[in-house]
């Protein structure tokens, strides 16, 4: 377990550690890296304009970290594409990319097609529904990849350690993460419980990884990425960055049910393929997170689901009730 804690200590960042954008751009240029930003969209006219403007101004014109900003759309019926194009993003309809393939519709499809369409050695994916968008969403994810060649996949998470006092606090992901994904990872992939928010839609990945992994089209894409990259490249390929607060619309519980169902399908498919479904029989540790200031640590909780047999099998019972 100390290995996992040392991974958390070494590979968990806060975006404020990367404030020196000039240095970041210098190293990016020295390493001759090309970086693409992909914003997958479906009816995001309210937030897309702001995202494109902020990333273009701050991450292309002021600090040229990004070489392209692309919106890949699933067929919005609002003005998403018009607004994005107006502010200078390259806009694509997912259905126009690799058009001879069978059409599929979902966020994962857009992310997958971005690998074909975009030029970058690194692709950074940012959801288009974030209302408090800030350049940190891009540089916070890119910096570990730019500074450390061994890192392949950087995941965003959202916490606010700098704004809090010294007490211990629980931390972690949203409802689906804590109710479904973390228990599943605790059972089958304990190492992956080190990811504080496995389902966050913001991540930056090297092309050589993206081209090697399959993409579920729907809700399971983030979960499958973690499992597949972990299985092929190990935990050391990952890093995670605290991007502070993320404001977006909260989903109703029924939608979370749909999301969980999709994730579960993806998960079972992978667990079966890896032949690890039996592993659940002897694992009783649930791994959650807590944080003290900016230090994250895992909280291990033993949950033993012991069972009693049917009462009919107990002799005393049978005697008492003449069964």
């Amino acid at each position, binding site marked *: 377990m100390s290995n996992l804690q040392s991974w958390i200590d070494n590979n968990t960042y806060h975006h404020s550690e990367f404030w020196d954008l000039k240095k970041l751009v210098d190293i990016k240029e020295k390493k001759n890296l090309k970086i693409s930003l992909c914003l997958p969209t479906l009816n995001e006219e309210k937030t897309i304009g702001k995202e494109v403007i902020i990333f273009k101004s701050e991450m292309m014109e*002021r600090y040229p970290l990004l070489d392209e900003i692309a919106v890949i759309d699933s067929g919005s019926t609002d003005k998403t594409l018009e607004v994005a194009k107006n*502010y200078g993003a390259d806009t694509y309809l997912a259905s126009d990319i690799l058009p001879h393939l069978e059409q599929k519709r979902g966020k994962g499809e857009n992310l997958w097609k971005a690998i074909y369409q975009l030029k970058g050695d690194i692709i950074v994916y940012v959801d288009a529904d974030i209302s408090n968008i800030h350049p940190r969403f891009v540089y916070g994810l890119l910096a570990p990849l730019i500074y450390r060649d061994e890192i392949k996949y950087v995941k965003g998470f959202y916490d606010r350690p700098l704004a809090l006092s010294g007490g211990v606090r629980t931390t972690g992901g949203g409802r689906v993460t804590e109710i479904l994904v973390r228990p599943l990872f605790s059972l089958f992939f304990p190492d992956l419980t080190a990811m504080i928010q496995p389902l966050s839609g913001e991540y930056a990945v090297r092309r050589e990884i993206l081209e090697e992994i399959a993409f579920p089209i729907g809700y399971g894409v983030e979960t499958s990425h973690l499992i597949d990259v972990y299985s092929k490249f190990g935990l050391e390929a990952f890093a995670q960055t605290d991007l502070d607060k993320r404001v977006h619309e909260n989903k109703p519980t029924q939608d979370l049910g749909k999301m969980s169902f999709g994730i579960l399908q993806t998960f079972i498919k992978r667990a079966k393929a890896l032949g690890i479904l039996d592993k659940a029989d002897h694992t009783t540790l649930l791994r959650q997170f807590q944080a003290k200031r900016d230090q994250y640590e895992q909280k291990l909780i033993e949950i033993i689901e012991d069972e009693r047999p049917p009462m009919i099998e107990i002799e005393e019972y049978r005697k008492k009730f003449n069964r």
Partner: protein
Amino acid sequence: MKNIDNIDKFLSTSVKKLKKYREILLANLVMVGEIPSPTFKEERRVEFILNRFAEAGLTDSMIDDGGNGVGILAGTGDKETRKALLISAHADTVFSSNIDHTMEISSDTVTGPGVADNALGLAVLSTLPYILEDLGIELKNDLVLLANVKSLGKGNLEGIQFFLENSRLDIKNAICLEGIRLGRLSYSSIGMLRGEITCRVPESYDWSRFGDASAILTLNEVINKINEMKLPGRPRTSIVMGSIEGGTTFNTIAHEATLGFEVRSESEEVVEKAGETIQDIVMEVSSKTGDQIEFNIISRRSPGGIRYDAPLTKCARKVMKQLDIEPRLSPSISELSALIEKQIPALTLGITTGEQIFESNETIQIEPIYRGLAQVIGTILAIDGGYCE
């Protein structure tokens, strides 16, 4: 006044040139506007602007002891003869920190609380050094950029007054930036007295005064009497009944009620006289009802400023004409009056058009911003070139 034809060249192509800065300006607008900044709590906004100044290479940027953000773009002229031109934008808003400050951008508008008043003014202020450098514009004189705090309401222009009292800069002219409205040209301030009248009735219910023992009724009496005051048509004078607060619920007598009002006049004497009359009204109603009535003066401004045909006003009008901007002349009671008190020739300029001002869905139009910005840069060039003296 000398000829400003050589600035015409800049103005004739400026709108097209300035469109290039759309993303940078709007990004600054959004980032500055999403930082809540109610009066007296402007620190985070000012810090953001200071970062922008520092990034643009303004080495002399600092937060002064009054909390104002100051950046100086040093001029290329001789140090001995160089003057300072102040560009200011107030950093505070009327919106509390609890309100969602998220900005929304469509193809042609930006919406969010305080986007017009005065996130846009601040965005222009913080983007100016970048734009001037990128356009290769070098000024002979020092450009002093000021994000002044504690401006609105009870802030009572404290920030800019502190700056003007304590800064050692020799400021010769000033331009105050307001997000809206494009065409606004303020060069004088009017006399103003802003006050609050609070009525209080005792908490114990007096059955002998059934029906009228309410702070609201007492305040109503005061309001009626203020309304009956005879105000002169010339010099132009008005009383704005701005806000009213009082009571808690349907069935409980209001123990306290407060009126916020403002007397405005072109004549200081009329303002003073109106103030005295209101004081008399308060005393009269108080003695008649037996209720406690308090009259607090929140702030005062003296009328003054430069003339319509002063060189600075003329220059600005010429620049506006060149850009097809119709000037709307209006006196001001904001930062401009603090500058006027210090005898600094100054103007207030608006940047764009907008609607729902002071609402949480305050909205500005993007397209007119380029002309608004061109007008600001054109006026700066005219002042720097010595054409406004």
